[in-house]
C-alpha cells in the first residue's frame, strides 16, 4: 500500500492576513490586499502597487529576533508561517524525531542591498562604460555586510527553520519560479511516501516586492501597470481586460505527515494530500505552450496519482495569474483534461485579491483548497467583470459560493515551463 500523507498543520502570512483564518475570511469577503507600494520608494516605477504583508511583527514568532537582523522578508514570513504551522500541528519537541523530519520549501531570494550594489557599480564605471571590479570592490568592501549578502541565498528560509526547530532530516529548497511551492509540496509528499521522512515542513515563501523584482517583471511586461488609481482592480484573472499579474508576498507552510505517525500522536487532520503531477513545457523561455501541453499532463498525472477521475474533482484552484496567455492556456488545458465536465467544475483564482506570491503562491492556494473543504465554500475570482470569450468556464465570479467540496485540484505553472498540480481531499479514515 502507498503510504498516506495528511496535512496536520498550516501557517500562513499573506497580504490578506497574518494567519490562515484571517486570510481565508478576507478572501471569502472579496477584500483586496493590493495597494500602493510602501516597502520602498516606487513612485516612478512603471508599476506602483503590490499586495504587501502589513503590520507584521517577527518577534511574535521566534525565540530571538536578533538572529534575523539581516534576514530578508522571505525568511521573516517563513518563520511566522512555520511557527503557526508547527503550533497548529502540536508538534512539540519530543513528539517527532528530528532526523526523520524534513523541510521542502519553494523559496525565493532574500533582501538585496540595492543601494550599495548600484552605488558601488556606479563608482566602478570606467571611461569605457565598463565596471572595474577592483573599483567596485573598493567601495563595496566598506559598505557591504557579509551576513546581509548570505541571507540572499534562497535556502536561507529552510536553514533558519532548521536551526529554530532542530530539524535535521532531508531538507530541500527549490526555485522553479511561480510553481515552486506546489512542486515543493509534491516532492515533500514523495519524501514521505518513500519513507525518507515521517514529517516534512513544506510550502513556500517569497517577496519580490523589491526594486529589482519589480524592475525585472516590468521589463518583461508581466505585471500590470493599469488601474494605478484603483490598484485593487489591477489583478483581473480571466477577465477580458486583464493586463498582467500583481506582485504579492508572503509564506504558507504546512506540516505533511504520514498517516500512521499523525494518528499515533493523536494529531488533528486537516486533509489528505493524495496526488501530485509535474511536467515541463520545453517550449519557449518566455511563452507557455499554446496548446497547454505541459499543464494538461501535470493535471492528468496528479489525478492518476490520487486515483481520482475528473468527475470527482469539486473545485480547481487556478494558477490564474491574470496575464493574457496564462489564463487562456489554463482554460484550454482544463478543457483538455476534463472534457465537457470542464464547464461544470468551478475554478477560481485567489490571485485576484492576494496578488501573485510567486514561490509562495502554490502553497497558499493549496491552503485555500483545504479551507474550502472544511467550510464547503469556494473563494471568488474578483474583478471578473467582462468575460473573455476564450475564458468561458465557471470562475466563481465576484462572490464566494457555497458548494459541496470533497476533492480539489490546485494548479501552478512557472515561468520557464514547469507545471505542477496537487490533489487534496477531505480525510476519510
Amino acid at each position, binding site marked *: 500500500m502507498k503510504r498516506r500523507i495528511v496535512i496536520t498543520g498550516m501557517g500562513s502570512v499573506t497580504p490578506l492576513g497574518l494567519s490562515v483564518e484571517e486570510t481565508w475570511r478576507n478572501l471569502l469577503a472579496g477584500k483586496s490586499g493590493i495597494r500602493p507600494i510602501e516597502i*520602498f520608494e516606487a513612485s516612478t516605477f512603471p508599476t506602483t502597487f503590490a499586495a504587501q504583508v502589513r503590520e507584521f511583527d517577527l518577534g511574535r514568532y521566534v525565540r530571538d529576533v536578533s538572529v534575523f537582523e539581516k534576514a530578508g522578508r522571505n525568511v521573516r514570513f517563513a518563520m511566522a508561517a512555520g511557527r503557526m504551522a508547527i503550533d497548529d500541528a502540536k508538534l512539540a519537541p519530543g513528539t517527532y524525531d528530528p532526523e526523520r523530519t524534513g523541510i521542502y520549501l519553494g523559496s525565493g531570494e532574500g533582501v538585496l542591498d540595492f543601494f550599495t550594489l548600484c552605488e558601488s557599480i556606479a563608482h566602478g564605471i570606467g571611461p569605457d562604460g565598463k565596471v572595474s571590479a577592483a573599483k567596485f570592490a573598493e567601495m563595496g568592501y566598506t559598505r557591504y555586510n557579509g551576513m546581509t549578502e548570505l541571507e540572499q541565498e534562497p535556502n*536561507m528560509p529552510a536553514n533558519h527553520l532548521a536551526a529554530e526547530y532542530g530539524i535535521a532530516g532531508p531538507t530541500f529548497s527549490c*526555485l522553479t519560479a511561480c510553481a515552486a511551492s506546489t512542486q515543493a509540496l509534491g516532492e515533500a509528499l514523495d519524501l514521505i511516501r518513500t519513507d525518507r521522512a515521517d514529517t516534512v515542513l513544506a510550502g513556500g515563501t517569497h517577496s519580490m516586492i523589491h526594486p529589482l523584482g519589480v524592475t525585472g517583471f516590468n521589463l518583461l511586461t508581466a505585471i500590470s501597470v493599469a488601474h494605478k488609481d484603483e490598484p485593487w482592480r489591477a489583478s483581473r484573472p480571466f477577465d477580458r481586460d486583464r493586463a498582467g499579474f500583481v506582485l504579492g508576498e508572503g509564506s504558507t507552510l504546512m506540516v505533511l505527515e504520514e498517516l500512521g505517525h499523525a494518528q499515533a500522536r493523536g494529531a488533528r487532520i486537516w486533509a489528505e494530500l493524495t496526488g501530485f503531477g509535474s511536467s*515541463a*513545457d520545453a517550449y519557449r523561455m518566455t511563452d507557455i505552450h499554446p496548446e497547454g501541453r505541459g499543464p494538461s499532463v501535470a493535471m492528468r498525472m496528479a489525478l492518476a496519482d490520487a*486515483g481520482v477521475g475528473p468527475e470527482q474533482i469539486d473545485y480547481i484552484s487556478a494558477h490564474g495569474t491574470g496575464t493574457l496567455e496564462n489564463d487562456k492556456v489554463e482554460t484550454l488545458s482544463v478543457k483538455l*483534461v476534463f472534457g465537457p465536465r470542464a464547464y461544470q467544475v468551478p475554478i477560481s483564482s485567489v490571485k485576484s485579491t492576494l496578488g501573485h506570491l510567486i514561490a509562495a503562491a502554490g502553497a497558499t492556494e493549496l491552503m485555500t483548497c483545504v479551507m474550502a473543504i472544511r467550510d464547503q465554500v469556494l473563494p471568488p475570482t474578483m474583478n471578473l467583470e467582462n468575460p473573455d470569450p476564450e475564458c468561458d468556464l465557471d470562475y466563481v465570479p465576484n462572490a464566494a459560493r457555497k458548494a459541496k467540496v470533497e476533492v480539489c485540484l490546485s494548479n501552478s505553472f512557472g515561468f520557464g*515551463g514547469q507545471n505542477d498540480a496537487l490533489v487534496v481531499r477531505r480525510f476519510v479514515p
Partner: protein
Amino acid sequence: MRWIWIDKFIEFESGRRAVSIKNVTLAEEHVHDHFPGYPMHPATLMIEGMAQTGGVLVGEAFDFREKVVLAKVTRARFYCHVLPGDQIRFEANVMGEVRPEGASIEGKITRNGELVAEISMMYAHLDQSRAPLELGDENFVFNEDFIRMLRMRQLNQLKPSAQAARDVKVPLRRRIVITGLGVLTPAGNSASALAEAVRTGRSAVTAVSRFDAGPFPSRVAGEIREFDATAGIRKDQARYVKKMAKVMAVDIQLAVAAANLAILDTGLPLGDAKANEPVLPTIDHARLGMVFGTSFIPTELDDLAEPARASFVDGKFSLKGWGSGGIPKMFPLWLLKYLPNMHACHTGILWDAQGPSNSLTTNEAGGLLALDECARIIKRGWADWMLAGGAESRISPVLMMRYNLVGRLTTCNDDPPTACRPFDVTRTGQVAGEGAAVIVLEAREAAEKRGARIYGEVLGTGAGQTTAGINAVDADGRAVAVAVRQALAMAGVQPAALGAIVAHGTAFTPQDRSESAGLVAALGPAARKVPVTATKGVTGNMGAASGLADLAAALLFLKDGQVPPIVNCTHPDTEAGLNFVSGKPVALTSDLVLVTANAIGGQAAAVVVKLNR
C-alpha cells in the same frame, strides 16, 4: 514478434483484479499459420494472455519483487473462435489473496460481453533464496513493457472511471544506473579531464584572470578558460544556444554545455533535423526530465552600469531616479538571464524534455540532492531518463566579496596551485571555483536493453540538514552523518564494505572538521579504514556543481583500482579520525563508493554508487 499477448490494461485493483484487452488483427503473422485460409487467434495464446494479465496482477501485489511464473492451468474451456477484427477482454480475479508463495486466479475472456473462454490458473513465486546463482537479482519476469503498460493506463486515459483509477503502484525497486557524464571544470571540459588532474595531482587553480581582483583579500580561483556549449549538438540546437547566449548568465551556459555533453555521452542517437525528426528519436520525450542544483545568480556588474549611472539625482543614487532613468536603460530580458530555473528551462527546450523539471537552490549540496530526487522520480515511474545536474560560477565580484566578507575564502595568494588544501593541517580556506556537471540516470533494465555503457549503479542516497545556524556548521557533523547513514541504509551497504569515500573537503577548517566528524559518526570503526579522497585542490569550490563533478570523476579515476591522493593534502589532519589518502594512491578494495557534499549552515547530501569496472 514479441511475447506480449495483451495490448493494455483498462482496469486494475491492486492485489484483487485486473482487466486487459487485446485486439486481434490480420497484421499479426501467427494467424496466417493458424490456420492457412482460416486465420484465428490460437486458444493457447489466449491462455498466455490470461497468464500475463494475472501475472502482472500477482507481481504488482509485491511491488514486482517476486519472480512470478505459471505453475498450473487448473481449468481452461473455450466456447468460440476469435477472429481478426475481434477485441477480446481478459478479466483476472485473485482468489483469496496474493500469498508469499504465490496466488491463484479465476479468469474469463469475453468479446462484446459474449463469453469466449474460462481459464483458472495458479502462479508460484520462484524461491530466490534457493537458486540465487541461476536466477540472479534482476526480475526478468516483469520487463519494462509490462510496467509501462500499467503506467500508460494511469496517464493516458482522459476519463478514468473512479474504480479503474484506484491506486496503481509502480514498482519501488527500479534500479538506477548512470549512463552519461557531462562535466566542465577548471581542469578541462570532460569528466576524464578532471579525473586525470586528480590522478596526477595537477591543480587548475590560478590567479583570478576574469577581472581585476586587486583589492579582494582572496585573489585565486579555479576558472574555466573556455568552453563551447554547441559542441556535438545538432545545427538547429546550436543556433538556439548561440541566439540565447546573451540571456544566459555563465552558470546557465555551463549547465547547458554539461547537459549536452552528458546526453551525447549516453550514445542515444540524434535525429535528423532536416527530416524534422525529434532531437532524440529513440526515446519518449515525455519521460525525459531533469533536476538541477543551481544558485541565486548575482547580476553581472556591466548589466547595471548604465542604469545605475542614470539613477543619480544630485550626485546621489535614488530609487526615484532608478524608476525614471534606470529602468528604461535595462535590457528587457534581464531577469531571465539570472533566474535559477533557466538552466533547466533552456536544457529542456534544447532536448525537448517534457518530464518533471526542478531547480534546487541548496548551495553546494544541490548537485547530489538533484541526483537524490532524480532517482526517486525514476523509481516512482515518472521518467525513464533523468538528468541530474549542478552548475555554478563563484568567480564573480559579488560572490567573491560575499564569501570574503564571511571569511570562507583563503587569503594565501602566493602559490595558486597549492592554495586549496582539503583536510591538510595547513589549510587556509576555500578557493572560489566554477563548473557544471550533469549525470544521466536511467532505469537499469532499459539501459541494458539498449546496450548502453553503464558507468555505475546508484544504490542509495541520503540528505540531512544543519541545525547550528545559517553561517555555522554542526560541530558533531550531524547533517553529514544523517545523510551518509540514510544513503548506506538504502544501499544496504555496511560502512566497512566501502571501497572509497570522495569527500566534499572544501579546505575551510570548520567545514572540513564538521564533515570529518559526520563521517566518523556515520561509519563507526570503519572510518579509520576506508580511504578518503577529495578533489577541490584541483578545482576550488564549484558550488552546486561540486558533488556531481566529484561523482563523475570518481567513476573514472577509480576505474584502475587506485584511490588517488587528496591534491595538496601533504599533512593530513590526523585528529579527524579518517583515513585520508595522502602522497600516493592506495588500492581500492571494493567497488562501493560514497560521495558527499554539504553547505555551511545548510544541506548535506550523500550517495552510494557501485562502480561498473
